[in-house]
């Protein structure tokens, strides 16, 4: 926590001289987050292949080269690619098979998927319309799975754990903070003592320590549920501290005195008079918590103690980068998840920035 973490920024820095507008940046941040939200909700539509489908004949294939210029008749044709063939299994070299031409089309049928568990469909944004090959925008991984499809699904899983964890941690923190701010001294001291104990440790270390208490191999749904539980048990402290401080300062204000004079119940005062006024700072704190949890989940999946294979996650996809020969051969495709992480975190920061808040809180 930084000293000025919860103070709203003075408006219009960046921004001085009227060259940049924080609003524009905020909109940009929201647009980035919105894009990723759409991508994760309609993951099945954007992913051309099933993220778990393996093709052992094509391990670590390079990204497909999509061509629009036709060598045969020298004209521009619809996008197509030549299917690749593994020529050197030791060094994983591939060669294009000029006889196997595959046209790429939009809105093609493929594997079946469901959207939000309600709609079922087999329509995909793009795919092969003619030919037996496959299109791999980011190549394939060591098991021959389409990396682009895995990336799209990974965004979905990463965008579940962190936001839900943030929400639950915030609710828990708000409740404890409200209680602490409005209770007798002894309760207040106990609760804030617990919060301080929690805050005295670096979050990632406690999260990892808490993770050690549970079996390492968990089915994916339970792993996500466990991460969410750990995030909310670890994350409440800072929110509770903030909320308590807000209650302490707001309870002296006139509108609270007025409500008290009217005989309102303390719970009513807290929920309907104090909480709405504290909401701005609470949201600020939540936008600080969200990237922290996102990074925690990704780091844990990277270390193999978060979301595990075969379920794709931004973290466990990055674990491929530890293979240095593949990292040097195709740094951009291997690091695509890292770029996605950067964009998502940047989206959150820009959104927070647009609300004229500090960007200096990590």
């Amino acid at each position, binding site marked *: 926590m930084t000293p000025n973490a919860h103070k709203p920024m003075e408006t219009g820095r960046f921004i001085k001289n009227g060259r940049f507008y924080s609003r524009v940046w905020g909109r940009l941040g929201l647009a980035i987050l919105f894009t990723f939200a759409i991508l994760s909700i309609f993951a099945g539509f954007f992913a051309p292949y099933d993220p778990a489908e393996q093709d052992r004949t094509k391990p670590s294939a390079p990204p497909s080269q999509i061509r629009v210029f036709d060598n045969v008749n020298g004209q521009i044709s619809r996008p197509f690619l030549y299917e690749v063939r593994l020529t050197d299994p030791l060094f994983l070299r591939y060669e294009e098979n000029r006889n196997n031409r595959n046209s790429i089309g939009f809105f093609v049928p493929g594997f079946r998927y469901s959207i939000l568990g309600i709609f079922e469909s087999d329509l995909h944004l793009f795919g092969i319309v003619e030919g037996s090959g496959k299109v791999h925008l980011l190549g394939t991984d060591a098991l021959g799975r389409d990396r682009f499809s895995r990336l799209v699904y990974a965004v979905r899983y990463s965008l579940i754990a962190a936001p839900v964890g943030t929400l639950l941690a915030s609710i828990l923190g708000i409740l404890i903070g409200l209680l602490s701010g409005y209770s007798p001294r002894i309760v207040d001291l106990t609760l804030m003592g617990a919060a301080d104990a929690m805050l005295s440790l670096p*979050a990632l*270390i406690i999260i990892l320590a808490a993770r*050690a208490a549970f079996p390492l191999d968990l089915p994916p749904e339970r792993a996500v549920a466990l991460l969410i539980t750990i995030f909310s048990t670890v994350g409440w402290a800072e929110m509770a501290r903030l909320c308590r401080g807000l209650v302490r300062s707001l309870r002296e204000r006139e509108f609270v005195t007025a409500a008290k004079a009217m005989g309102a119940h303390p719970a009513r005062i807290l929920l309907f008079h104090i909480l709405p006024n504290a909401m701005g700072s609470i949201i600020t704190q939540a936008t600080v918590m969200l990237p922290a949890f996102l990074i925690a989940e990704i780091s844990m999946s990277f270390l193999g*103690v978060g979301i595990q294979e075969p379920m794709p996650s931004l973290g466990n996809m990055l674990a491929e980068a530890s293979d240095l020969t593949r*990292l*040097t051969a195709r740094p951009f495709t291997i690091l695509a998840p890292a770029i996605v992480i*950067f964009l998502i975190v940047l989206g959150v920061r820009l959104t927070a920035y647009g609300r004229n808040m500090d960007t200096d809180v*990590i």
Partner: protein
Amino acid sequence: MLVVVSAVAFRLLDAAGGDSLAGLSDNPNISTETIRRLRDIYGLDRPVSQRYLEWAANAAKGDFGDSISLRLPVTSLVLSRAKETFKLAALTLVIALFVSSVLAFASVRYRHWLLDSFVEICVLVTASLPVIVSSLMILAITVYLINLPAAGGLFLPAISLTPPFIAMFLAQSKRGLQTALQQDYIVSARAKGLDETTIILRHALRNALNPIITLTGLSVGALIGGSVIAETVFGLQGIGSLTVTAVRNRDIPLVMGVVVFVSFAVWVANFSAELLQIVNDRRLVDAERS
């Protein structure tokens, strides 16, 4: 505080059930009798409260038991690994403080809109570069450029740890200097005809320094957290990679040792930051007395 943290952690680690020996029961070559004897040796068959008291009594004497996975005393293991992480953290802080103070100084000294915007963008970008992203990118770049498995000592991991701290220090120091430069004593210093560099370095800096000291103290926790990833990626043997080993093996004595050590380190950092603030600003002492 340490007592509360350790008791809560201990209880929590026990609550979920299962321990590092649980994995052994899947192995057909190890009889249940062996596992029972091992449990007896490590004391895992006794109630939690008893184990905690025993652990706490030994811990007070500096003995945190033996690591189950590495079969070494936890205390010496943690202390020997701490050196590497300490060097890494110190180097990271030096780089982050240097870069951010130079940029902050330049932006308040020259007050050019281009520089100003550059600093703002720097804050946003570095704040969005988690260690996992920066360390892998730096690894990729170095391996690509010099074609060497990154054995470049502590420099590369330190660089990859810096971005979030640059964001934090840069935003704070720039704002601190800007606020300080609006004070009355700056006006009088300017009226004396001092040049702007002297004003910033001799007068404004001293007032902008305290929040930076606090932040430096607070960032130690985050540094150790970040070292978990940086040390894993660059293959360093520090506290961070030790934590990973402990968690992967569900080595509870080691996890506890790391947790206690890290909370102690964080406490020491915050305490020294408070002392440094008093050295920098005598007014704090007077405020304390009155």
